[in-house]
């Protein structure tokens, strides 16, 4: 899942932060980004906190809510981006770190996403990504880990606001090799990546001033990296599914221009806690149905079969979207992509499809 997130993250800072400043390496005062290497085990809660030496980092919460008996999908995301800004600038306003956040709900009754976003340079306590434990602030938006381990999330604007508690029910799921997750053919094309599936959700959803109590189940990804995607990549697909039996399925692929996988991966953690890590040859996304956005004209493969190879033999999950139009237009700060609640036999989760609106030149 470098994926979407990277794209959203990169574009959030308008590409230049990462891409445009490659020549910044030559300048005095240019930042040096930390590399992602295998064999560095993650420890918690320290790794719930921010890793400001790395270029990009995100905390990505997706899940299903029950609001007055109706299912509603939601996502709350915080990005931290380290910019190419001159590290010697002593100003408290020096834009070395930028925080971007994003929230959306998927209500079938509305038939499309309702979303909100925020962005600011870190500083003055108004925008921050704390080191040492999870505590993200962006004006009145917040995502933090309480002492009891519960995640507290608050986001929204005039149209809707989420105020949620997300209680972990399982230990963190370390993706890849103990959290070192490859995204491309080169070993440095990788991130540190762990997930918190099966978060028990309680709290409130406020819509147009009306506050409704909600419950549900969510999934959180935290991922940080300094590396670019492979040059051939134009987009990716990602899915994270909370299986009803307590298991958790993660699958992603990075696509080239022809729609072929440049890289793929994922994991399956069983109800018993045993985890299978997928390599590039273990995951396939098969499209059953497309949906074309009337706004952007982009054609998304929204109904997929995810085929994985497990030690117990191949398995297939047939994903169906909660509804078709879950396209998210986060311009001008982010890209246009599809990020939607999906269900499958024996599980519910989120599917992310990027790079279908326009090939993303990185």
């Amino acid at each position, binding site marked *: 899942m470098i994926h979407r997130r990277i794209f959203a993250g990169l574009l959030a800072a308008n*590409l230049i932060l990462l891409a445009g400043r490659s020549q910044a390496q030559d300048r005095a005062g240019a930042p040096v980004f930390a590399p992602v290497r295998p064999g560095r085990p993650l420890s918690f809660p320290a790794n719930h906190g921010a890793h400001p030496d790395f270029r990009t980092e995100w905390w990505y919460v997706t899940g299903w809510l029950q609001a007055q008996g109706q299912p509603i999908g939601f996502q709350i995301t915080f990005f931290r981006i380290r910019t190419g800004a001159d590290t010697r*600038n002593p100003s408290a*306003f020096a834009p070395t770190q*930028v925080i971007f956040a994003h929230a959306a709900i998927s209500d079938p009754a509305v038939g499309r996403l309702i979303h909100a976003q925020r962005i600011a*340079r870190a500083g*003055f306590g*108004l925008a921050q990504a704390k080191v040492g434990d999870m505590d993200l602030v962006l*004006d009145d938006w917040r995502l933090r880990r309480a002492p009891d381990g519960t995640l507290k999330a608050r986001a929204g604007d005039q149209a809707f606001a989420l105020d949620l508690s997300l209680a972990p029910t399982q230990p963190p799921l370390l993706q890849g090799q103990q959290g070192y997750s490859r995204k491309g053919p080169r070993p440095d094309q990788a991130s540190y990546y762990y997930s918190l599936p099966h978060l028990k959700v309680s709290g409130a959803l406020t819509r147009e001033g009306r506050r409704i109590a909600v419950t549900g189940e969510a999934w959180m990804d935290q991922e940080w990296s300094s590396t670019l995607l492979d040059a051939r990549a134009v987009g990716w697909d990602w899915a994270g599914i909370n299986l009803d039996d307590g298991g958790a399925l993660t699958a992603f692929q990075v696509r080239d221009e022809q729609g072929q996988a440049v890289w793929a991966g994922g994991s399956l953690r069983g109800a018993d806690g045993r985890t299978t890590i997928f390599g590039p040859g273990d995951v396939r996304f098969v499209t059953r149905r497309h949906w074309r956005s009337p706004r952007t004209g982009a054609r998304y493969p929204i109904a997929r079969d995810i085929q994985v190879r497990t030690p117990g033999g191949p398995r297939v999950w047939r994903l169906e979207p909660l509804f078709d139009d879950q396209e998210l237009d986060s311009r*001008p700060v982010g890209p246009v992509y599809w990020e939607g609640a999906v269900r499958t036999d024996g599980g519910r989760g989120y599917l992310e499809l990027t790079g279908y609106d326009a090939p993303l030149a990185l």
Partner: protein
Amino acid sequence: MVLGEWRAQPGRTLAAILAIAVGVGLGLAIHLVNRSALDEFAGAIRSVSGAADLQVQAASPLGFDEGLYPVLARLDGVATASPVVELRARTASGEPLTLLGLAPLRAAAVTPNLVGGGAVSGDGGVTTAEAVFDLDAITLSPAALQQSGLRVGDQVRLSAAGQSASFRIVGNLDGVSGDRALGVIDIAAAQWRFDQLGRLQRLDLRLSPGVDRTAVERAVQAALPAEAALVTPQSEMRRTESLSRAYRVNLQMLALVALLTGGFLVYSAQSLSVTRRRPQFALLRVLGLPARGMLGQVLIEGVVLGLAGAALGVALGVALAELALRLLGGDLGGGYFRGGRPPLVFTPVAAAIIFGLGVAIAVLGSLFPALQAERIPAAVALKTGSGESAETAGQPLPWISLGLLAAGGLAALGPPVGGVPLFGYGAIALILAGGVGAMPWLARGLLGPLRRLRAPAPPVALAIARLWGAPRQAAVALCGIVASTSLMVAMAVMVTSFRGSVEDWLIQILPADIYMRLDPGLTLDSEAQARLAAAPEAAAIEFRQSFNLRLRPDRPPVQVSARGQASTGAGEGLPLVGRQIRPEGLPVWISEPMARLYDLSPGDPLALPIGPGAQAQVTVAGVWRDYSNQFGALILDQAAYTALTDDAGRAEAAITLAPGVEPEEAIEAFRVRLPPSIAPGADFAEPREIRAVALRIFDRSFAVTYALEAISILVGLAGVATTFSAQTLARRKEFGMLRHVGVRRGQIMQMLATEGALLGAVGALAGLTLGVIMSQVLIHVVNPQSFNWTMETRLPWPLLATLAVVLVATSAGAAVLAGRGAVADSAVCAVREDW
């Protein structure tokens, strides 16, 4: 019948209409020009402030602590706070520029127009998007690009606050309209490159939708340190207006005076017309028209005159305003708004008001003639059949006029109303009305002695007899010109007094040989000061530091100067007004405008938002005369200033040269001793040049005033000419009779010339006298109340003499011109014309 009357008297009717049109036109033009200039100015402010709901501004360029930013950002009701570093900068070629340091992601939510095109505003804006967080990037407003001749992609080197740095131009600030030279860089770059770490000059706030604005304002206000002040668009607008309000009101009043002159001309025209139609009115009375009908008819004529004049005036006003904006710029030469030619803004409400005023004045001018028409005794008028009304031979009574004059005197004692000397202007109007009303009495009084002349030539004798015998007619002819002359004289005396006082003041306030001033943002540190002071060319150097300090949010800032040498106090050599004290605490010397605006006098304590805690306690030691800053200036000892603020930098110096040193060589020597980064930004001037520049600015700012006055004099003269011609026409039978009984044509012309000259002389005398009286109201009431400064009266004798001569000559000329037709042979037969 109305039309018939006017067709019979086209010249006079036209003059009255024109007079109203000129008054309305001038009034509207001045209003429109000011409105346009203010709109442009306010627009410029808006484009720099963006469209923030609220703005917190630093009291001085030193800024306030950036810690205020998160405090205000977290206040309930504040949706977003956008921190701003605001500096005055210059490009390498010396073009001035307002440099804003912004946090673009914040500014995008509060002041989107200040964020470079496309940075966060849409698709594909990747190139301009580079501006975001690029600490070496700058976006320039179209005006700044044009001024500097630079293009997107160029490097530009900027100096501000004594530092300089180079930036790459990455975009155009399309959102900044007009001629505002503006550059936007990242706030972190601004703080770092221009030595502003930890300081902000501004915080722009956007409020959450639907919050109680006043509650938020209160909360913001409560959170502010003394070095920052809350500014709302309203208070900003107020400040903008207060900048030029007094000047504007003055011009507006002058325009209304032109209108008043028009009113007097309507009075002239209508009086004559009523007189001429006495028999006709009498006939109508006999035929059964009630007296009220006469009144109504004349008033309706006034309304029609007024409507025609006012309509013409509105058109004239718009044209004049357009022309003035094109030729003089938005401040009409007043020097309040810099640069640019604002587009004309038409304000229908104001136009309607001025239009209505024009009509009202015309009706008012017709009221007396209308009452006169109502009172015409039918039988007598029918019987005499004379066009010229028979005036009673008794003494005209000046009581009403004396009453008006006395009321004027009382009104002059009144206080200003909302910063505008309304009572002062009322006093001028009353004195004018009283003076004009006293004209018949004055004419008779002045002509009385002439009647005792021994054996004057018959034409002279006839002229004197007529003027003495018909003073009211003289007054009718003269009222317009007396009004306009007296106002011109009042203005001229005031301006001369002002100019003289300014000249004296300039000599007193500039005692040194050379003055040096650095560009905004540049300062000399102690070392550079020592280098300059060590120059052998200088006998003594006094270093100074000036900056603007806002003491009240809705007032323009006062100028604070730190000056004085160790040996002498800062108060040394100031043109002090009134007493000076030696206070216990830190002494400051305040200017006269400041004393009046802030109601301070020697001994009063004052808190200045500078230094530790931004609350320096000082005491007023003295008040000095100042014409350079109408919003107040304050002087404190420079050593005390440094002790208070730690700011040892100085941007100005007054240099006394060593004996025998020429200013030019000294300036060269000083320039060499300046640090190379500062030398190009240093201006040296000799007091002589400064005085010349100051007086030039002074003269330019009063040029429009003179032009207005000249126009109203011309209107007045036109009134005299048309009235004379009307009166002369009405006297055709008299001339016919005189020709019969043996008066030569030339003698009649002589008689008319004498009448004209005498009338002109009476008018000039009355106008000058009234003018001088009114000038005292301007000098002692209007000026102190609107500009907060005082001056000493000086009379512009050459101008007054010229005015008198011109008046006498033009009236005589007008009378002769009017008489030419009336004494033609054919006209002589008029004795037998019947009515």
